[in-house]
């Protein structure tokens, strides 16, 4: 485990090598990042085994009294600023290995490996192939760093670096105006959230005197910190999490982020980076649970995001954007779960969603690769053209819809259980609505593009190379099997509930009544979707016309983007223009040039006494003499 630091470092080296010499070995530029990640996976597997098999008597490892989990910490000093010993700040490059970081790092490494293999096929004709791989390597490096870091400063560093990679990859095709605008939007919006995160970290330092997470948790646990402070710190951290995990009202950047290459969407904007917000909340969970108000806020934000995004997903016609809204919705669900004390459930859902959504995005990448179009209304009947993709896509979609035995089922069920148990009836009913909506949009995304009659000519569709299908197959296998780790398997070291937990281990157990209710709701939504999209019942068409206004609002994403645009165009930019004008007119022209102008004017007025004629000078001199004489006289007389 003490070699975990090598994973980000190797990838970082791969980033440097690839960005330096990538263009010389253009088609083989994938080698170094791939090598790095395979090595990383090896180190990870080795460490994971070590962790699972150890009896936790290793050096550096101890059981946290707050979280109850065993964590292993390794750190070296990074820098010290200020007067050493008296008034200084010490920061460390440290990583922690505990079940949470192992889970998220594992997800990141695995999905990244699959996506990188996939990308060899998907990106092979791109002129910036090398650039793509080097940024990918940088992303993996920082994502692993994010998952492993044991202090908030390092976490923030990694947090910003993944944001940078997201920016670079969304804007990968930077000639496209949409791509560059989307990249700018993504970075700016998440950056606004990061303001909160950074202030939160500063507050933590003020309170605790260090950035170390376990120091903070110990102090929080011992009740030394005022509840108001806990509320504000967790609120500020949550702002950062909202930005990164695209929670309402910061969600606007994620759908636009689909301008990036599809494998990027699969890795960064579905499986790993956007989950960082959820990860942050889970990381700082000991802090959040101390503030009941904060937990309610987290649940509410999660719920609003989840329902709002799910509704948009139901009407979106762009396949990738629909998937993006589905991602937002699921991230909201994870937040909701965290807010409802469903810690383990949220993380399990994070993993299950990560695998499934990566699979779905890669599926949409296949479609993009074959027919170069993403509008689902222009597809239809793809199952005959892309049979393998259809099956893989269905596995992912059904998993997220919550069909039993697929991984999404287990995690979703756990989430619903914790919501029903820990939150009131409004949340419970809303989560059922959410189950219905997610079932409905998933079946829509299956039926409309893949089944039914073809809406276009597929004769020019590209064949899919094996290198793209193989990683999807592996992912699909994981999606099918992964959920079972939720249960205790004989022979396995632990179930997920005893592996990753907050305060005390808790085995998963299926609650039959809730499971049956959700299953029924899901099947109902499938039936509903079948009636609308396959049978095309006229009653729904009429409904569509009747509810035109509502649908229009949803289709326009509640006009939130427009609202922001107006805010920026009509408020921020004019204000900035006003300040610039103020600077030029008032501060410069009046404040700085003003005295100069006055001096010059006065000078040019009084310089008229300089006539160049001697007698004028003499007259002035005489006047001066007379004045002096009078003054002297005055002094003498008085």
């Amino acid at each position, binding site marked *: 485990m003490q070699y975990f630091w090598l994973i980000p470092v190797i990838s970082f080296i791969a980033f440097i090598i690839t960005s330096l010499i990538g263009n010389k070995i253009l088609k083989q530029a994938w080698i170094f990042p791939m090598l790095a990640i395979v090595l990383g996976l090896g180190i990870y597997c080795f460490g994971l085994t070590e962790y699972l098999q150890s009896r936790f008597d290793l050096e550096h490892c101890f059981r946290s009294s707050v979280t109850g989990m065993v964590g292993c910490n390794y750190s070296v000093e*990074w*820098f*010290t*600023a*200020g*007067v*050493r010993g*008296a*008034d*200084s*700040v010490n920061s460390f490059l440290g990583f922690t290995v505990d079940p949470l970081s192992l889970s998220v790092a594992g997800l990141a490494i695995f999905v990244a490996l699959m996506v990188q293999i996939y990308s060899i096929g998907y990106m092979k004709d791109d002129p910036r192939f090398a650039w793509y791989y080097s940024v990918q390597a940088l992303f993996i490096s920082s994502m692993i760093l994010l998952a492993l870091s044991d202090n908030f*400063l390092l976490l*923030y*560093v*990694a947090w*910003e*670096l993944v944001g*940078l990679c997201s920016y670079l990859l969304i*804007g990968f095709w*930077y*000639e496209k*105006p949409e791509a*560059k*605008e989307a*990249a*700018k939007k993504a*970075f*700016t919006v998440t*950056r*606004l959230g*990061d*303001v909160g995160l*950074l*202030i939160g970290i*500063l*507050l933590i*330092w*003020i309170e605790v005197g260090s950035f170390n997470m376990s120091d903070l948790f110990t102090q929080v646990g011992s009740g030394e910190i005022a509840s108001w402070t806990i509320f504000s710190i967790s609120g500020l951290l949550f702002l950062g999490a909202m930005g990164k995990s695209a929670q309402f009202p910061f969600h606007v950047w994620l759908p636009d982020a689909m301008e990036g290459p599809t494998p990027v969407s699969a890795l960064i904007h579905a499986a790993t980076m956007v989950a960082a917000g959820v990860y942050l909340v889970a990381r700082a969970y000991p802090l959040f649970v101390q503030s009941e108000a904060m937990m309610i806020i987290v649940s509410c934000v999660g719920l609003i995001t989840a329902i709002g995004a799910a509704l948009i997903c139901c009407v979106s016609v762009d396949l990738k954007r629909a998937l993006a809204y589905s991602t937002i919705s699921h991230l909201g669900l994870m937040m909701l779960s965290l807010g409802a004390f469903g810690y383990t459930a949220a993380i399990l859902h994070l993993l299950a969603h990560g695998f499934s959504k990566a699979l779905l995005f890669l599926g949409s990448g296949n479609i993009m690769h074959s027919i170069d179009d993403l509008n689902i209304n222009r597809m239809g009947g793809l199952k005959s053209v892309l049979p393998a993709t259809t099956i893989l896509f269905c596995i992912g979609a059904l998993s997220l819809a919550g069909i039993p035995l697929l991984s999404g089922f287990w995690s979703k069920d756990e989430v619903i259980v914790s919501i029903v148990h820990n939150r009131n009836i409004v949340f419970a009913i809303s989560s059922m609505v959410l189950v219905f909506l997610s079932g409905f949009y998933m079946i829509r995304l299956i039926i409309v593009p893949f089944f039914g009659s073809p809406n276009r000519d597929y004769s020019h569709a590209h064949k899919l190379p094996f290198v793209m299908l193989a990683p999807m197959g592996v992912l699909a296998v994981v999606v099918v099997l992964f959920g079972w780790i939720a249960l205790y398997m004989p022979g396995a070291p632990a179930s997920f509930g005893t592996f990753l937990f907050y305060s005390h281990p808790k085995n998963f157990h299926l609650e039959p009544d809730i499971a049956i209710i959700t299953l029924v709701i899901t099947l109902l939504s499938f039936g509903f979707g079948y009636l609308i999209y396959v049978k095309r019942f006229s009653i729904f068409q009429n409904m569509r016309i009747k509810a035109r206004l509502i649908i229009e609002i949803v289709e326009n994403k509640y006009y939130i983007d427009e609202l922001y645009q107006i805010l920026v165009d009509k408020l*921020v*930019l004019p*204000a*900035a*223009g006003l*300040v*610039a004008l103020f*600077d*030029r007119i008032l*501060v*410069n022209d009046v*404040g*700085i*040039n003003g005295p*100069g102008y006055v001096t010059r004017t006065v000078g040019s007025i009084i310089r008229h006494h300089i006539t160049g004629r001697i007698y004028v000078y003499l007259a002035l001199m005489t006047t001066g003499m007379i004045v002096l004489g009078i003054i002297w006289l005055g002094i003498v007389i008085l």
Partner: protein
Amino acid sequence: MVGDSDSLMNELYNIMAFVLIALPLMAALVFMVLPNLTSKSYWLLSSIISVITFGISVFLFMSYDTLTGGTQFSFTVPWLDQGINISFGLGLTGISASMVLLNGIVLLGACLISGDIEKRGRDFYVLLLTLGGGVFGVFLSSDLFFFFLFYELAVLPMYLLIAVWGSSTDFGSFTRSKEYGAMKLMMVLVAASVLIWVGIIAIFVETYLHGTPTFAFEELRRLSENGLFSVEFQNWVFLCFMIGFGVLSGLWPFHTWSPDGHVAAPTGVSMLHAGVLMKLGAFGIIQIGIVILPLGAQTWMPLLMVLGIVNVIYGAVSAMSQTDLKYIIGYSSVSHMGYVLIGAATLNSIGISGAVLQMFSHGIMTALMFVLVGAIYHRAHTRDIYVLNGLIKTMPHICVLFIIAGFASLGLPGLSGFIAEFLIFLGVIKISFWIAALAVLGAALTAVYILRLIARTIVGPVDSSLSDLPDANIYEKIVSVALASVLVAVGVWPALLLDSINVGVATIMSAL
């Protein structure tokens, strides 16, 4: 014989600080009496000189012993000692070590990049070297009199450098001629230095009246610790220093000389202007104001902090709506120098070390930006961001480095700006939560205008008129890559600089 050569080395070692100042100034003198050579040969000669000064500054920085601390490489020659006690004193402190390194790097860069100067080459390099020597002098002086002398020596060449080799720009609704920029810069800075001079004279007179006339830092500091300067005295003298030095750091509302100066100045001069010259002010506040007048500092720091935060937000917001590349960077300098002022105003060791690190980091970063903007302007003959677009297609090298500099500017971790700003935030939040919150918000605003700049000019579809511009030449490549690597190195391993800065800050803190 061994002993002799040892003592010679020792001798040389001891006067290293003097050599660093004297070399560029002597070279400037020699250039003046040299027969007329071509501009290229003057460029070559001054590049060699600046390589040597760079070497010496690296040597000084590396040899600064952080365990011993204090003032090292002291070198004192009495100059006027009858009752006035002015001595030519030099010395290297923990803070000036990194500043000297900064000037060494930027001066070298500015020399290398100015190879395309054709008009009156000799005069240009004479002035450039004078400027560089003056800046070294300011950082190394340990006597107020010579501090001020070098300060003026550093400021004055700026006027000619901008007025003769600068460029005038028409912005449609208003124009900025090079003469205007130079005149404004000069007027504002000279007016500010009057304030500084008043403060210095006041300090001297105060010591004179107490029978211990001196200009030397160490002596003044000792007198100050013994309570020579009353609170009222410190209050008004520190105000003089704060405004006088503050103006040079772009203190709001006396900042407009800086963006206009940038717009008018040629590339190499812009680098020195934003990279080094603006640091002199903050250096003065930290190294002189706080140390000699600690009580005055405590009185005025709340005001300085508020003005600093105004600088940060105001500069960032102004930069948002600018359309000229140099204006954007000029206002971003105003914004970033605001962080330095805030950091100095915290009066705690973390904030001050952050401020010094920010001075270094901003110096390198903004020098890099001006190299690149100069290169773009040189090729495209415009700096209007509505005209420039998609440059990365034609100038990948320049643009990639520009993006790195931009991200350093917006405080991306891994580049030096982040650590510096973060330390300043830490220092500030110990004083006031809301100021810290505004400061962090300012960093987010930086992201807005930097990303806008990148989106407008660097990426996007390329215009046909810009599609056949050449990429950076070899000197621009060397300079920009070197500057960028400094940014990365300091960002990844800030202890490189922080070790010596901490020592310097410890000295300052002991005065408070």
